[in-house]
């Protein structure tokens, strides 16, 4: 059974004027079909306004679909009685690190979720302990979130979600407001949870270089999925990515340019090491 599955999912934002007449309709999601299996690391890539955040909110039952269906862990999200169970299964980490931390002490914030669902006190302590350890924030447990860096705040937010023991975590542009070191911290934490705890990760981002290590990538634009595949497949279509004005990493771009100049460099180069090896191979091939 897929952990998340959507079929023909449509979401329209309807704006009304004072007299309740429809002023404009924006289609944020346009018949989206996707499938995420338990334990996968999925990336959804797209610009602001491509509908990727709307999709994320559907997975957490924070929005109601206009059309189509979405199932989370086999539960139809549109059914009222499934809302709380869905939110327990699928946690969510948001973009702004400040606006999702509720308590004034790190450990109390992590406890917020379990408190809401009525976990007994002893178990809350266990879960808080475990979650803080999973994101390596144990030594900050008694700190005020205000004194932490952006990356640390996001890790607290991740711990807060982990304490709910979800099967799946949706990261909604968790790194957009962070500096490079904060971005690295958060990504490392996401991968760690995926590998060590087997949590399904759905990473929503507009940074191309963050999807390199994902199992599968969906590219969204105007509410539709326009490309999907393994990172290597996606990265081999440099021209198409550029046409959609996506941010192709320098290395991939350079590899593509070199290939176009006639060098025998394979498609879908992802890392610096791969490119260096490919170029050096060209050099030695010449020699032979």
């Amino acid at each position, binding site marked *: 059974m897929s952990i998340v599955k959507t079929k023909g999912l449509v979401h329209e934002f309807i704006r009304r004027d004072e007299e309740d007449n429809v002023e404009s309709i924006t289609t944020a999601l346009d018949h989206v079909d996707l499938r995420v299996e338990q334990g996968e690391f999925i990336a959804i890539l797209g610009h*602001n306004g491509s509908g990727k955040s709307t999709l994320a909110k559907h997975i957490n039952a924070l929005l109601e679909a206009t059309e189509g269906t979405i199932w989370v862990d086999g539960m139809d999200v549109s059914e009222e009685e499934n809302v709380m169970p869905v939110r327990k299964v699928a946690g969510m980490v948001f973009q702004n690190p400040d606006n999702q931390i509720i308590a004034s002490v790190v450990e109390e914030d992590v406890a917020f979720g379990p408190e809401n669902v009525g976990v007994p006190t002893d178990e809350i302590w266990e879960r808080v302990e475990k979650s803080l350890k999973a994101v390596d924030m144990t030594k900050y447990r008694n700190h005020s979130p205000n004194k932490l860096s952006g990356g640390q705040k996001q890790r607290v937010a991740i711990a807060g979600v982990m304490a709910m023991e979800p099967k799946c975590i949706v990261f909604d542009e968790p790194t957009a407001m962070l500096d*490079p*070191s904060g971005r690295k911290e958060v990504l490392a934490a996401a991968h760690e949870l995926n590998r060590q705890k087997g949590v399904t990760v759905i990473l929503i981002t507009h940074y191309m270089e963050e999807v390199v290590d994902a199992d599968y990538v969906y590219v969204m634009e105007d509410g539709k999925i326009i490309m999907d595949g393994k990172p290597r497949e996606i990265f081999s279509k440099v021209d198409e990515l550029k046409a959609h004005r996506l*941010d192709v990493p320098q290395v991939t771009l350079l590899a593509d340019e070199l290939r176009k*100049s006639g060098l025998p460099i394979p498609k879908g180069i992802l890392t610096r090491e791969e490119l260096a090896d490919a170029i050096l191979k060209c050099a030695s091939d*010449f020699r032979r």
Partner: protein
Amino acid sequence: MSIILDKVNFSYSQETAYKIQALKDINLKIEDGEFIGIIGHTGSGKSTLIQHLNGLVKATSGGIYFNGQDIYDEDFNMKELRSKVGLVFQYPEHQLFETTIFDDVCFGPKNLGLDKKTVELRAYEALRSVGFPEALYFQSPFDLSGGQKRRVAIAGVLAMKPEVLILDEPTAGLDPAGRDEILDLISKMHKELAITVILVSHSMEDVAKYVDRIIVMNQGSVMYDGTPKEVFRQYKYLEEVGLAAPQVTYLMHELHEKGLPVNLDATTVEEAKESILCALRNNEAKRLQ
């Protein structure tokens, strides 16, 4: 036309025990028409530094001279300095407050005490130079997309007709397309309006493409100050303080170490491509001889 910083020091909470020295002995000279990138990670003092340049923060010790005048002189006109040195803060769209976009851009020039006609002319010019669609001038700024809001906010500073434009992480939170648009816009303004531009960023790759000079800040001090090529040559030291040179720099060094004589100063994809092709050709030629 220049800004000179002479032994500038700044610390927070002077009297209390929590003294934090944010800037340490900064000496800088910023010449007319330069395009400068200030790089440093969060807490390196880069934001504090630029707030000194238009007098929003006063140095604990040291002097700042704008066109030869000491800005801490009693009869120095601070208001004029703020109009000459325009500062666009991080997430500048958060400062929008008027009911229409046009009115918001008028706020700056109005504060300078100009007459209504001049104010409106300047607002119009500013909105034009940021490439804002005329049809939207009289809409509410709160309905715009993030990138558009940011343009309006930049126009709001531009309408003061600054000689120096400082932008604190103008691309923060934007997607790649929005980021490229804003950076292209800034580069265009530097050329067309012939103003000095100082760009604060934590991304080396963004900055390398545009600026002529990079100032690297670390723990409140200037760590490096030079052309992008000079600075990126120090990539190993940059890494130690949590900054990264462009990916291409690493690649070129790796190739060089493994015996391919490429140009180590290449920082952009174009330069790297030329250099690699050239090196491979030479390699080939040598073999044929």
